[in-house]
């Protein structure tokens, strides 16, 4: 993890957002990942997404576990609070953090090892609670820091750098999330910033659990011929079915879409996300048909991308529980007990 700060020098003509900040203000320390790592592209996409959304850096909480992906919160938005927790446990820390302060915006960055192996239990339960967070999986099918073992997302037949092909079924985070009832599910590719940025923006603003599964190749251990998570393979079999555009509260949906192909969905704070169908066959509001489509394309060897499912009818965790709108951590302690006289009444039950 880097501790080399970047100089905060911005060209005077660099564009500024509504807070008067430039994109440079949303960067972090210098990445220490390998040159060409997909994760650095995801970091750049997050920087752009957060900059464009005019998020106050200190109102953003960056959560992670352990692994290459989990290092990346140090590389974006240095003015945000970061919590680099233990392996596979980012979801529980985020759940507790959100329980205490529902006003912050939570972005969790995880990997396929962190979320689909050691942290599979926590990943699925965060979905089940409809925890209000943006959950990014930087998915490369391989363990980088321990030098190249397959992860649970490796495809059958995918070749490692050395040794034998993977024979076990992959765990696909998108179809897992779909089965569990996640309310915002997207998949993209680290090499497609144009598609990725609005998907992250929608995920940050969605009220509930948002998954963005990002194929993010590992240049050192999984970018060779025979790997199904390489840049070349991903580019070749990459298939957009439904893209999204972020529309700020004041903007109107531009009429650039073909009639009937665009659908706008309200997000938190009055902004919208417009869904653009690339494949007419795809229905992003039906879990059953989305699941069928995804499996069929998967069997054909394709990687289906876009905003694959969205449901804005389900309440997020706090609203499901009926919790106060005030963050729990801001409730004054003295208001949280009924006092000495009431204690006497309580004790009378035990005589």
């Amino acid at each position, binding site marked *: 993890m880097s501790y080399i700060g970047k100089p905060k020098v911005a060209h005077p003509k660099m564009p500024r957002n509504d807070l008067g900040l430039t994109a440079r203000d949303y960067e972090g320390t210098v990445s220490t990942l390998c040159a060409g790592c997909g994760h650095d592209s995801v970091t750049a996409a997050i920087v752009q997404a957060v900059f464009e959304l005019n998020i106050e850096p200190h109102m953003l909480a960056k959560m992670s576990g352990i692994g290459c992906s989990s290092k990346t919160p140090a590389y974006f938005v240095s003015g945000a609070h970061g919590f*680099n927790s233990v392996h596979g*446990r980012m979801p529980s820390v985020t759940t507790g953090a959100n*329980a*205490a*302060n529902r006003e912050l915006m939570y972005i969790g960055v995880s990997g396929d090892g962190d979320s689909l192996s050691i942290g599979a239990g926590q990943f699925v339960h965060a979905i089940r609670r409809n925890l209000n967070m943006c959950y990014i999986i930087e998915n490369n099918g391989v363990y980088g820091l321990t030098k190249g073992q397959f992860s649970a997302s490796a495809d059958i037949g995918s070749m490692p750098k050395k040794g034998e092909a993977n024979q076990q079924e992959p765990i696909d985070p998108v179809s897992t999330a779909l089965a569990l009832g996640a309310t915002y599910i997207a998949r993209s590719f680290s090499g497609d910033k144009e598609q990725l940025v609005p998907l992250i923006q929608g995920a940050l603003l969605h009220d509930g659990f948002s998954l963005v599964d990002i194929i993010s190749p590992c240049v050192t251990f999984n970018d060779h011929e025979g790997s199904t998570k390489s840049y070349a393979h991903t580019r070749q079999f990459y298939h957009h079915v439904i893209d999204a555009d972020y529309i700020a509260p004041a903007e109107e949906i531009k009429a650039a879409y073909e009639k009937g192909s665009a659908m706008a969905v309200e997000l938190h704070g009055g902004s919208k996300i417009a869904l653009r169908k690339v494949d007419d066959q795809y229905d992003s509001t039906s879990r059953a048909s989305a699941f069928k489509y995804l499996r069929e394309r998967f069997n054909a060897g394709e990687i289906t991308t876009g905003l694959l499912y969205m449901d804005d009818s389900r309440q997020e965790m706090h609203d499901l529980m009926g919790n106060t709108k005030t963050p729990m951590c801001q409730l004054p302690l003295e208001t949280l007990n009924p006092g000495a006289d009431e204690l006497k009444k309580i004790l009378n039950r*035990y*005589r």
Partner: protein
Amino acid sequence: MATVNDVVVKIATVNGTGSASANGLLMKSIFRMGIPVVGKNYFPSNIQGLPTWYEIRVTGDGYQSRSDRVDIMVAMNAQTYASDLADVSSGGWLLYDSTWPRHKLLDRDDVTILGVPLSRMCNESFDGARARILMKNIAYVGVVAALLDIDLQIITTLLEETFSDKQHLVDSNMQAIRLGYDYASENFVCPLPSKVEAMDGTADHIVIDGNTAAGLGCMYAGATVGAWYPITPSTSLMDSFRSFCQQYRVDKETGERTYCIIQAEDELAAIGMVLGAAWNGARSFTPTSGPGISLMSEFIGFAYYAEIPAVIFNVQRTGPSTGMPTRTQQSDILSCAYASHGDTRQVLLFPKDPSECFEMAQSAFDYAERLQTPVIVMSDLDIGMNDWMVPDFEFDENKVRDRGKVLTAEQLEEMEKFHRYLDVDGDGIPYRTLPGVHPKGSYFTRGSGHTRYGAYTEDSAAYQDVVDRLLVKWETARTMLPDAQIEVSKFNKAGLLTIGSGHGACIEARDRLAAQEINLNYCRVRAFPFSEAVQEFIEQHEVVYVVEQNRDAQLRSLMLLDIGAEPSKLVSLLHYNGMPLNAGFVVDKVLEEVAKGRAA
């Protein structure tokens, strides 16, 4: 054997038959007569059909531990009849259901057998299988009431309070009580020579279990986030917190809650949630037991190193592994004191009874927030799930609770730069900020090596600087935590030292030993790290008998490690069979040591 207000009644039943309410009724009625009582429940890890016992010790002297005798056995379980008969102290009584014939071999010359046709009477008076079973249990309450001379009016009042709006239930229960009471009065010489007499020994006292008290304490402490995974014997702590919150933390108009209870997927997640919430400034806690502590250990170490407050209740049960989940022990002392890999030390509090569970549930949050570290409240099954008679809890509304060194937006505004792990005050405790409060407060929390400024490091000196500073904080903790309860006479050469639920038995053992001219000083440790007073206590004595409820002398080992106590002075008296400690054990063990020539 003729005694007044000094009698032990043990009731053997089958779990899942409603005997718990009958036993509670019996205990409460004695308490209402002003007589101190102790209730102990020995139950199986099972829902229905296995043997269970409830022991009521009537103790006019006000002792708090279980007794080593059984004066009256209510043998309602044929499965355990033979062993229950064997348990009765010589000169005692055994009450059984004489509806069915009993084998003549199952008699003892020194025990008076009292047969009452409970099933027959209840079958004649009540309809339905379930009602007959329940009423049979209520009927033995009537028999015991006659045998001990318990005031029937008090029983009536208790039933009226329990079934406030259901008069028919009061009537049917009283009918069953009468069946037993009248039968005993007509067929036996009532009361027995061992009986109860109203006194004034329970004023300003309550009967409560430790988990209920701790849950109430969490509510009064202002805890807002509780995350947990159900595990015996800690589960009722969260049940208690929930029920008090439902009453006091739901806005009457909007229905909005000011508490958030999350049933986690496992203990790893439960502690992760607690840390996330505490990082954001909420008072958060988790109740668990030994296996849960094992699972939480990685995160507990994280919290130690990243300096995040957390309150953990460990309601200890019998280990190792699954062990005996419904039996008690103090066998997680070492695993909690050094929870997690690497150099870690955790703050422990040792409540002695439900009263201290209420107090420590509150102070644990103060210590956790002041010290920015996990605090583990080391309760146990005996404290957590048994009924204890304790003085009324008190709550000081004017006490300002300690939230520790948390910088406000105003303070941050005036600072040039905030550094998370800098020891500004020299007490080893740095300042912290809460996310979202001020742009200058942002920092990166990590379990990886970090510098005093909060930056990642692999530099040896910068790493060591932080872990050495944590030792300074440890010494600060030593001076802050609740001090030991110490009773010393300068004439005594030997001391008795214990923790937690060992207190009641040790106090009683001291009295009994004093009657034999063996006088022991006393030290009850209340926190780890150990205070100077504990160290002095050990130094002052030729020998210190360390009474603890585990096989491996964990408390003794911890004293060698933490305060360098002289090993030859610390003599272990170890009780670890899963039953609560009793005074007889301590007395016998001390006498054995004295017979070997040890100081007393």
